[in-house]
């Protein structure tokens, strides 16, 4: 951790991303391209996070780990990847506290470390510098632990859920530590073989994964970067943080391989390759046998005491995404559609690397549908019609005809519903109609056209449009039809990307306020006099906590399900 040096020149964290500017239509002269009050946005890990999101993350960190850890975390979220000394300088904390805070944050998967080469002086020797970056998404996932726990409990049962709890409580654990915890909780009754079996269930279902390492990144020179850009214009240039995350992740085979056989006393080997090795040993190569046994011993120690495991948030996000998509299909097309979509998502190959695209054959879908309550009554014709209604596409592969669906479209529809509902409640039915019209149109629309389509009086429509624009829900352009003349018209558009960002920030703000209210109620409960008052405060707290979880559903829709 004793690393010195300044920030990497040209690092993406030094240049916060700018909000995208809308394209100008060809005709006319545009005077204003704007949202009236654009907020301050900080860059964090992979996505733009608004100030409210950062405040909420810091509040979570403070509640879970205290002020000092939260301070270090806030520094990393706001400033991007930093070295140890930079963190100490910016936070003005003693080195010991910074070190402990980083250890806590890394242990709980809120910070990822990575190394880069750094040249000391011009033409000087190259040294390795370790940078630390906050993983905003993992910080926010901390408020979802009850949801993650519930998913595993429903899927794999209470005992597996109890094991997962260990990972959620302690972040990273070796199998030995996990077993120790399970043994302690059961009063020494838990058998290692049983714990291993449950642990393997968790790993094979991808609820638990092997922890990423600390990657070393070779920084590209400016020439290499520019030539790479020329080679693939369509490919987006990755930030150093994105590259670090990719490099740190273990391969899929390692990530979900589990601990298969080395824990058992008999040493029974199920793997084909290992079986072959044993046969070779039996053939009489004694020295090789001894070496193999020694290797197995070392491997066993590494597997139990060295390899760190953690909860795989990606999988949990996918499960919650599935739940949201199915709920959306149910509300739009009925129970049949929900059953078919759920069967389609469950029957596809669980490839969590592509969370937005699911594909499955008709046979697998039908099998899944028949296995669900209410699914038996659905005929092949019904299922086919529902798949069409859901917008599934047909593709022919060697294995046969496959149905595929883009989950992003369903999530987009959920987002529309949420934003529209917000507009309806805040601004009324007329504003809701205008907003829906502009969302559906997806381009700049003249005020008169809006009035014609929405059946509103001109003055009323103008008032609503202005209000929505002032509150950042609409994008407005003033067009001079005759340059120098007085004739000007207003064009309006819902710029989805910016509106979604605004809605997300709004949600984080509401979540922050609810969290503060919860802590206030808890403080009041602790000093309350009398059982009745304490009970009342407990009920209020319960409702607020449930509200926060509901709010989180909406936050996930706009923040986690889009990627």
């Amino acid at each position, binding site marked *: 951790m004793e690393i010195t040096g300044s920030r990497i020149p040209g690092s993406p964290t030094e240049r916060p991303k700018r909000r995208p500017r809308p394209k100008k239509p060809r005709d006319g002269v545009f005077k204003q391209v704007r949202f009236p009050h654009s907020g301050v946005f900080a860059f964090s890990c992979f996505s733009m996070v608004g100030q409210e999101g950062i405040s909420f993350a810091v509040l979570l960190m403070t509640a879970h780990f205290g002020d000092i850890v939260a301070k270090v975390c806030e520094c990393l979220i706001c400033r991007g990847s930093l070295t140890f000394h930079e963190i100490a300088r910016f936070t003005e904390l003693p080195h010991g506290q910074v070190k402990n805070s980083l250890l806590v944050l890394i242990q709980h998967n809120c910070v990822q470390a990575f190394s880069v080469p750094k040249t000391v002086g011009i033409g000087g020797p190259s040294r390795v510098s370790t940078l630390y970056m906050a993983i905003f998404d993992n910080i926010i996932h901390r408020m979802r632990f009850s949801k993650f726990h519930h998913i595993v409990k429903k899927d794999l049962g209470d005992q597996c859920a109890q094991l997962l709890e260990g990972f959620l409580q302690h972040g990273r654990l070796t199998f030995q530590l996990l077993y120790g915890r399970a043994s302690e909780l059961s009063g020494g009754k838990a058998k290692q073989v049983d714990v291993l079996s449950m642990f393997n269930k968790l790993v094979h279902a991808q609820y638990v994964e092997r922890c990423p390492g600390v990657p070393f990144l070779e920084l590209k020179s400016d020439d290499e970067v520019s030539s790479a850009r020329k080679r693939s214009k369509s490919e987006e240039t990755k930030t150093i943080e994105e590259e670090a995350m990719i490099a740190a992740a273990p391969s899929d085979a390692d990530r979900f391989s589990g601990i298969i056989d080395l824990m058992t006393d008999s040493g029974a080997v199920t793997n084909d390759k290992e079986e072959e090795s044993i046969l070779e040993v039996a053939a009489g190569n004694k020295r090789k046998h001894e070496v193999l046994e020694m290797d197995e011993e070392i491997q066993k120690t590494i597997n139990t005491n060295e390899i760190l495991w953690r909860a795989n948030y990606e999988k949990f996000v996918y499960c919650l995404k599935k739940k949201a998509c199915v709920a959306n299909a149910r509300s739009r097309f*009925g129970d049949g559609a929900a059953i078919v979509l759920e069967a389609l998502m469950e029957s596809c190959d669980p490839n969590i690397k592509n969370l937005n695209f699911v594909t499955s054959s008709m046979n697998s879908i039908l099998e899944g549908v028949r296995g669900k309550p209410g699914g038996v009554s659905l005929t092949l014709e019904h299922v086919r019609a529902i798949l069409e209604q859901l917008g599934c596409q047909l593709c022919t592969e060697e294995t046969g005809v496959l149905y595929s669906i883009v989950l992003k479209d369903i999530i987009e529809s959920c987002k529309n519903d949420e934003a529209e*509902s*917000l507009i309806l409640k805040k601004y009324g039915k007329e504003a*809701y109609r205008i907003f829906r019209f502009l969302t559906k149109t997806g381009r700049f629309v003249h005020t008169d056209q809006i009035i014609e*389509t*929405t*059946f509103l009086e001109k003055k009323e429509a103008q008032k609503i449009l202005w209000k929505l624009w002032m509150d950042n829900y609409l994008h407005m352009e003033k067009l001079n039809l005759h340059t120098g003349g007085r004739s000007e018209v207003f064009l309006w558009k819902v710029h989805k990307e910016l509106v979604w960002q605004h809605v997300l920030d709004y949600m984080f703000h*509401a979540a922050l306020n609810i969290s503060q209210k919860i802590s206030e109620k808890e403080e009041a409960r602790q000093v309350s006099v009398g059982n009745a008052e304490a009970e009342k405060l407990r009920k209020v707290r319960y409702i*607020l906590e449930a*509200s926060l979880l509901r709010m989180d559903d909406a936050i996930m829709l706009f923040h986690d399900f889009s990627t």
Partner: protein
Amino acid sequence: MSSNGKLPQKRKLPQLPENEQKLYNLILSKESMGIWTADMKKETGLPNNTVTKALKSLQAKNLIKDVVNIHNKAKKFYMAVEFEPAKEISGGTWYSDGNLDVEFINILRDQCRMYVERFKVATIENVWQSIRDSGVFNTECSMQQIKEIMGSLVLDKELEELNSTGIGDFSRIQPGKKCYKRYKDGGNPKEQGILSSIPCGVCPRLTDCTPDGIISPKLVFISINGWTSRCQVS
């Protein structure tokens, strides 16, 4: 009515004084678009009082009429009596005397909604035919009007626009054809949103409510009754 808004009747013009004739010719040339008094003065070069006097005289002779421009009701527009105001001036079929005919629109919306409910799934043609046969309206509604009304019902999430699958409720409709049905939850989007169902979700003062803001979340009183909340500064 002809396509340019001209009425079919023709009549013989009386002999007009020079100024009136000049103005009348100008107004007549503007056909169904009419002309604003300020533009008349600019184009004819006649003084204010002459124009005002001539316009009064032409109106008295029943040769011109004043029309309301929905885009600016304060501007006085004149048009020859042979013409009906163009859509750009009158606002089209949904306007009556320069005002949005809210009553007519609402009745037509109710009728369209009712027919879709009755059919479960209906095409625009089905609804149009039903309204025509019902005789609810004295004037005939065009297909375009029904289309616009259905569009507004879709925007209000009272109806859903779908393509027929040809099975179940859609069995009467050719597969792939555009049709309409009632929303599953009866068009009540208020219940759909998460934000609208929780405290702080749609609070109008949320922007001001921050730990160091005008209102502090810790100092507001939230009265919770089930899932609804009332929030006020204590």
